[in-house]
């Protein structure tokens, strides 16, 4: 053991010495190796529309910003992984990802329930993850140095929803959630906050049902709440709201950013027009976002899904960090990239992003949007009903 250790130290010293030499030697323009940026998001299954958007957002950003890295002699590649929105798949992909020494950063995931166990794996090798979409508080409250996100948090998104509901002057709400980490998380945060505001919560119900919501809707209709909050994703929320309207429920609808997909109106049709949703994804109305939308459409032939922009921003931040970590022609290490990400300050289409010591953006913007048309093509035109900029709460101990 002892001799191995000494030999190891010697090799390390030698390597370091060699590492310092190239500053003097001529810069080799090519062949410094490949830097891979991995994405993990659902590319198949019910949420693949959003997952695909994350992958494409990253691809677009890499193409746009890889110039400096290529000039420094690195090849930059995107390697997409399909986590199928399932924690077990995400974790097994994560194991493959950490085994690939060229991967320096992961952009992902879509689902908090997948991101949490997967990031435990990334942490083993201090591989940086920049999340475009995971809003669950646990993501950053664990205080891992390698985990960051550019979006807001559920424990803020819930209160944003309740703030808005309160401003609509509703007197009673009925809350339904999908029993996932994400859905139940926002629903509970919403509930706690709206109760504080003195609004009556007349029902709190979890369901895994995907098709038949009749038996849940019947009591809702009888209790006739002013507003129904659904904590979950659009593939379940859309049929729920649709069946509720068709059964004659007249309440206002509100949901978290899981509703933020054009598939919501594809499935829900006219029934979901007028639905409000809170989101940490910037609406596609700012000039920067418009430009992004046009480039995205030109390249991929479709409108960006929500979180494609956040994924683009995450990747841009990652590339800035990679540039810092490779300054002077060094080969990047995961530790260096992970540390560099926390130092990046990036002004993009979702505002200026700077991470705090947990990996949350120092100030995140939250929006309340209203569905304005039953045409999925017009999803980008949803009206902004309210905007709030809120700092991430301090870590709960």
């Amino acid at each position: 053991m002892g001799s191995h250790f000494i030999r190891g130290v010697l090799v390390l010293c030698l390597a370091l010495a060699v590492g310092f030499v190239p500053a003097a030697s001529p810069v080799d323009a090519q062949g410094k190796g490949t830097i891979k940026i991995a994405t993990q998001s659902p590319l198949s299954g019910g949420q693949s529309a959003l997952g695909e958007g994350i992958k494409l957002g990253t691809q677009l950003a890499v193409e746009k910003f890889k110039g400096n890295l290529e000039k420094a002699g690195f090849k930059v590649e995107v390697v997409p992984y399909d986590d199928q929105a399932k924690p077990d798949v995400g974790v097994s992909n994560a194991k493959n990802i950490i085994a690939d020494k060229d991967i320096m950063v992961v952009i992902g995931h879509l689902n908090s329930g997948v991101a949490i166990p997967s990031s435990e794996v990334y942490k083993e090798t201090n591989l940086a993850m920049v999340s475009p979409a995971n809003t669950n508080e646990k993501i950053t409250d664990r205080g891992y140095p390698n985990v960051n996100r550019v979006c807001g948090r559920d424990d803020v998104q819930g209160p944003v929803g309740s703030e808005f509901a309160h401003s609509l002057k509703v007197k009673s709400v009925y809350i339904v959630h999908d029993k996932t980490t994400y859905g139940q998380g926002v629903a509970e945060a919403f509930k706690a906050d709206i109760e504080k505001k003195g609004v009556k919560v007349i029902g709190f119900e979890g369901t895994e049902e995907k098709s038949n919501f009749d038996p849940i809707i019947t009591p809702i209709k009888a209790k006739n709440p002013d507003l129904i909050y659904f904590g979950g994703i659009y593939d379940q929320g859309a049929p729920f709201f649709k069946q509720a309207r068709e059964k004659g429920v007249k309440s206002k609808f509100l949901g978290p950013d899981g509703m933020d997909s054009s598939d919501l109106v594809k499935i829900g049709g006219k029934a979901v027009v007028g639905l409000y949703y809170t989101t940490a994804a910037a609406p596609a109305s700012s000039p920067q976002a418009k430009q992004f939308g046009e480039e995205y459409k030109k390249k991929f032939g479709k409108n960006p899904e929500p979180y494609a922009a956040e994924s683009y921003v995450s990747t841009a931040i990652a590339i800035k960090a990679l540039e810092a970590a490779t300054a002077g022609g060094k080969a990047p290490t995961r530790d260096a990239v992970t540390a560099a990400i926390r130092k990046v300050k990036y002004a993009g289409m979702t505002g200026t992003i700077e991470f705090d010591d947990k990996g949350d953006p120092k100030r995140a913007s939250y929006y309340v949007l209203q569905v304005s048309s039953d045409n999925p093509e017009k999803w980008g035109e949803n009206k902004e009903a309210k905007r709030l900029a809120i700092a991430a709460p301090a870590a709960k101990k």
Partner: protein
Amino acid sequence: MDFELLVGIFPQVLLDGITLGFMYALIALGYTMVYGVLEFINFAHSEIFIFGAFVGVEILLSLQSAGWLERLPWVVVLILVLLAGMLASGLLAVTVERVAYRPLRNAPRLIPLISAIGVSFFLQDVIRFFESIWRNAFNLVYPTMDVMNQRFELTSTIDVSVRSLVVIVAALLMLWGLHVLVNRTKIGTAIRAVAEDQAAASLMGVNVNRMISMTFLIGGAMGGAAGVLFGIQYSLINPYTGFIPGLKAFTAAVLGGIGNIPGAMLGGLVLGLLEAFAASYLSLLTGGAFGAEYKDIFAFSVLILILIFRPKGLLGEVIRGRA
């Protein structure tokens, strides 16, 4: 506890439960008929069921894009879609039997069962693969027909939608048709003969293979019809949607007494009602301690209780005797 509310929603829950129950009953027939004849559980039936829903949605979407959906009378559209779904699922069931089960008929019991599970996975992904190429979509939505969305509001809490009525009426008609087919026709007699004793039936001049195919055709067609009705009622389908209703329908078949046709209908209704009542009433009755998410636990607990006291199901398992 709000007693008025509990009573007020009762008829609505009953109606929802009956609608769901008839759907389960139609699917359960596929399991029970095959079991009656071959004593084997066709686990691919849940995919045969959802295949009917996919054929239905494809036809409706084509009609819609051709602009005929509004022009044709809705009854015609409905019958057309139902027949197409039945035909497609029936033929698929026959093909599955021919390819995956018949070569294994004399193998030990577990072998065709494994084959059935394999077929189930295979069909799920074939449908997913095809739809992702054909429509670039995972979730498909049944186009709305305005007539179907009409509701008769009886009181403020109770209303009856045309859709539920269509499901119930169509299911009743099909169950009646099946009853006549099995009990009053020559084919039905032959199927029952095969169920009773294959060797003896073949000695009496019954073509056993053809009758087995016929069983799959009828069971598959019922499943296909259920698929179309499922799509019309709940509107959203994806290639994996069939699994849970299939499992529940299988349970319904066991509950009623597997191999027993009236048993499957009764079992489906009982399970549908149990589920609807559990989902609507659990949280009201327990003050929110147990919510709708416990509906399956509740329904299946009742099921276990019933099976403890009547291990052969409500109407008894009829393997030898009647089909």
